[in-house]
């Protein structure tokens, strides 16, 4: 049975999600005039959306972009997670460091770094190749949907890693041991035992990453928008921020309503996976010992793979951002570039604004991750561990913020605060509005992580606790929490980092009164103060590096985060 302290927060969260989505749907049937709701539009907004000349190309671009992003992030993220959690790679905890560091880098900086490396006209790769091989065309232009997908995939690899690693960590190695004893090869073991065991986590991760890719804004904006290569998010952005009139919220909401329909379909698929999930329960409380696969002579290759990823996801973006932060103005990079570098851009940063943004971000870091994890546990407990009627509906609702592109979610929340809540809950222009939107927007991530983890906690353990006379709270504290702690920590860390780098949601609920630090960097960058924006971003990253090491050194951490069994504790 779920208790009120579980049910009430879960229902309030679900009601908020429904209310915001309902507002988007209402807007999709509303006639907009001068940016204000001015009556009923029927299907007019949908007709306008479907007749947009950019829609067909945008749709195909989005599908290709999402597919490439998903493929790259899985091809890199799943092996990295396996190396970190289930291999005997020496110093494999460094992989977590790399992953967490890559989570810190804002997506638009990853995009900028790669754009500067592979831009068709000024990118180092292309200018050098064209000069060396006397080419008339750039061999590796990145400002197309394939290039965008590759960069987005690199950026999303860390997300795939975070989603998959907990399942690899808590997987019962006895099953693998049994397969080995039966003479299974490593390949057969991987394909017939390991992958099927983490199947729910892979499906959940794939669905999540695909939706994130569809709604991804910063990399398509940095790389594609300027070249008129639109994906769904940048297409919506253009409608949300037109310069020749008021935002076209009707058309945006129509797109959002269609996405909600798609989300419902995806939620149905996911729910089916979840219903079958009990067959994947593998933590039984007995024989739970991790066994690491010996890499043998493949260790150098494994490290080369890790290094390659670190280079693409971390080194290149950061180095090029740093170069931009140190240069007086943009220029093709040549041998004399170092002589022209200086710290003058750092001196010209509007420091009062940076400090204000830092304070707002700090508040979000304190509040949002705890809220996301706590509310996710409340929802996931009802969904996974109870037989409450409508629990799958609750899970579906909690999944919706994933499926609805965050641009729409931000717009819905902002307009609701502006036009509906102004006299009831005056939060327009406050950090509280951002905190609410972030919490709701990331509740799907939290519940996916906690769902996957709770699924693997076999009901025998809970029943054993109850049979021993323990109250629900005691069972949760002494049995469930230790077992799902890696997932909770992973979710918490990830949301902390999201708070520090999030742009898309913030962009649609921000005013000059509630700017976050990433928004300050983005505003400067997108406002033409590229070098000052880069300087702020470098400061953000440099400030986060010690924080990352604190997480790794003193956080509730190494054994939980790096693969040892929680059951051993």
């Amino acid at each position: 049975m779920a208790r009120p302290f579980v049910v009430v927060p879960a229902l309030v969260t679900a009601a908020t999600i429904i209310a915001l989505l309902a507002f988007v749907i209402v807007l999709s049937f509303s006639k907009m005039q001068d940016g204000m709701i001015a009556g009923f539009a029927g299907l007019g907004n949908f007709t306008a959306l479907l007749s947009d000349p950019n829609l067909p190309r945008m749709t195909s671009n989005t599908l290709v972009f999402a597919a490439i992003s998903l493929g790259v992030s899985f091809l890199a993220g799943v092996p990295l997670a396996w190396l970190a959690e289930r291999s005997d790679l020496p110093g494999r905890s460094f992989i977590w460091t790399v992953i967490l560091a890559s989570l810190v880098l804002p997506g638009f900086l990853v995009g900028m770094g790669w754009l500067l490396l592979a831009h068709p006209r000024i990118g180092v790769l292309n200018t050098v190749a064209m000069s060396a091989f006397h080419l008339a065309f750039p061999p590796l232009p990145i400002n197309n949907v394939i290039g965008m997908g590759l960069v987005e995939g690199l950026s999303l690899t860390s997300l795939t890693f975070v989603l998959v690693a907990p399942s690899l960590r808590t997987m019962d190695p006895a099953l693998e041991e049994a397969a080995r004893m039966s003479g299974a090869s490593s390949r057969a073991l991987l394909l017939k035992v390991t992958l099927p065991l983490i199947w729910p986590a892979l499906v959940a991760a794939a669905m999540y990453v695909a939706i994130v890719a569809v709604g991804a804004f910063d990399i398509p904006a940095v790389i594609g928008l300027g070249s008129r290569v639109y994906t769904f998010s940048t297409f919506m952005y253009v409608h949300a921020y037109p310069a020749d009139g008021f935002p076209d919220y009707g058309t945006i909401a129509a797109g959002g309503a269609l996405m909600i329909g798609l989300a419902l379909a995806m939620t149905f698929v996911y729910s089916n996976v979840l219903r079958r999930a009990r067959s994947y329960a593998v933590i039984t409380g007995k024989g739970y010992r991790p066994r690491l696969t010996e890499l043998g002579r493949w260790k150098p290759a494994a490290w080369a793979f890790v290094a390659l990823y670190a280079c693409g996801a971390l080194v290149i973006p950061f180095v090029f951002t740093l170069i931009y932060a140190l240069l007086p103005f943009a220029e093709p990079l040549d041998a004399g570039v170092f002589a022209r570098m200086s710290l003058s851009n750092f001196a010209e940063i509007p420091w009062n604004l940076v400090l204000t943004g830092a304070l707002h971000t700090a508040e979000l870091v304190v509040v949002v991750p705890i809220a996301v994890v706590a509310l996710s546990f409340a929802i996931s407990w009802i969904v996974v561990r109870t037989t409450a009627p409508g629990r799958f509906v609750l899970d579906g609702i909690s999944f919706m913020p994933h499926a609805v592109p965050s641009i729409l979610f931000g717009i819905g929340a902002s307009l609701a605060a502006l036009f509906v809540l102004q006299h009831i809950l005056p939060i327009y222009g406050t950090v509280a509005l951002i905190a609410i939107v972030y919490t709701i927007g990331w509740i799907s991530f939290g519940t996916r992580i906690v769902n996957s983890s709770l699924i693997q906690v076999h009901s025998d353990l809970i029943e054993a606790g109850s049979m021993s006379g323990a109250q629900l709270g005691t069972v949760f504290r002494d049995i469930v929490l230790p077992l799902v702690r890696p997932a909770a920590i992973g979710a918490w860390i990830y949301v902390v980092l999201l708070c520090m780098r999030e742009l898309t949601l913030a962009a649609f609920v921000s005013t000059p009164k509630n700017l976050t630090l990433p928004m300050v960097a983005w505003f400067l960058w997108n406002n033409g103060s590229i070098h000052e924006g880069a300087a702020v971003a470098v400061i953000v990253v440099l400030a986060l590096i010690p924080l990352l090491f604190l997480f790794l050194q003193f956080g509730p951490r190494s054994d939980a985060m790096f693969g040892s069994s929680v059951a051993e504790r």
Partner: protein
Amino acid sequence: MNRVSAAAVSLLLLLPFAPPVSAQDAAHAPEPPNLAALVQAAAKEGTLDIAWGDIYGGADGARIAQDAINKKYHINLQIKYTPVANGAAFQNQVVQEIRAGQTASTDILFHIRDQNQAKSVIPVDYRKYIPNLPSGLMFYGNRSVIAVSTILAEEYSTKDVPPNKVPTTLTGLLAPEWKGKIATMPYQGVIGWYLGLPDVLGKDGMVKFYTALSANVGGLMTCGDSDRVVSGEFAFFGLDCGDQEVRLRQRKGEPIGSIYPKEGTAIYAFSPGIPLTAAHPNAARLFITYLLSPDGQKMLWDQMGCDNYLLPGSRMAPIIAAAKKKGVRFIDIYGIDVQHPELDDYQRTINTIVNQSK
């Protein structure tokens, strides 16, 4: 940490979660009758919140203005400047705030673009504070006042475009050799609408020009992002939001130049207004008064690269006069939407053309 400290830290962290102050009604507040009363009222408000991009000198301009105002009037006005990424869209956001009765996110809308936007700001007669101010600077029933003039030009890279190949006309940009090397802005319609005027290209000529230009365009960028021309990413950018960006960069020795197209070059204006729900309307009046003063005009010339060519001592006026002598035909277009309401549609037409997906 003891309980008191913990409570203090918690309070500090939660302070910005507090709801914003309720909207003031700047529209119905009494207007100070003279400069002395205005200074007193602004000092009482104590703060001015402004948000825009590089216009009016951006962060440096705000700091210089604050120092100059406080020094001149012996007050302690705090000017809080926030950069915004997309000025036109931000202004639409503020207009929505005003219509919803919320306190505007900025005490000054940096540019009242047309008569529709003018409905969201208060009328101010700046001649109360600057007696000799030419009345022709105020538009839309005194709801906006021209602070600076600018010339809508085509930017080009002096590194990548040889002097003998610099086009002097807009149609010169359509040459095949520039294909893929031109950037324009996603909101080009806001700038290029005047080309549809009957005595420039006319509507059909405008559509034909932008259709051909769009085929030659290699990418989109925003005003103020001229780094991308300097870097060689694009050889041309335009029409831009004014030649002030080029002027500022030329002062730093960057390889960039301006073209004033011979078909007709627009003199545009940036004209601030004060939102109906501004939190600090008197501080806003004082700031705009400063911009119109000789000190303010010098600051604008130094920090923004342009000033108001209609005011005495303008540095822009000789530039415009010199270009006229070379045969450039200038058209003053600010406020022209009152006589030509069809230009509003032209904006959308141009934007649709240049934003066509690849």
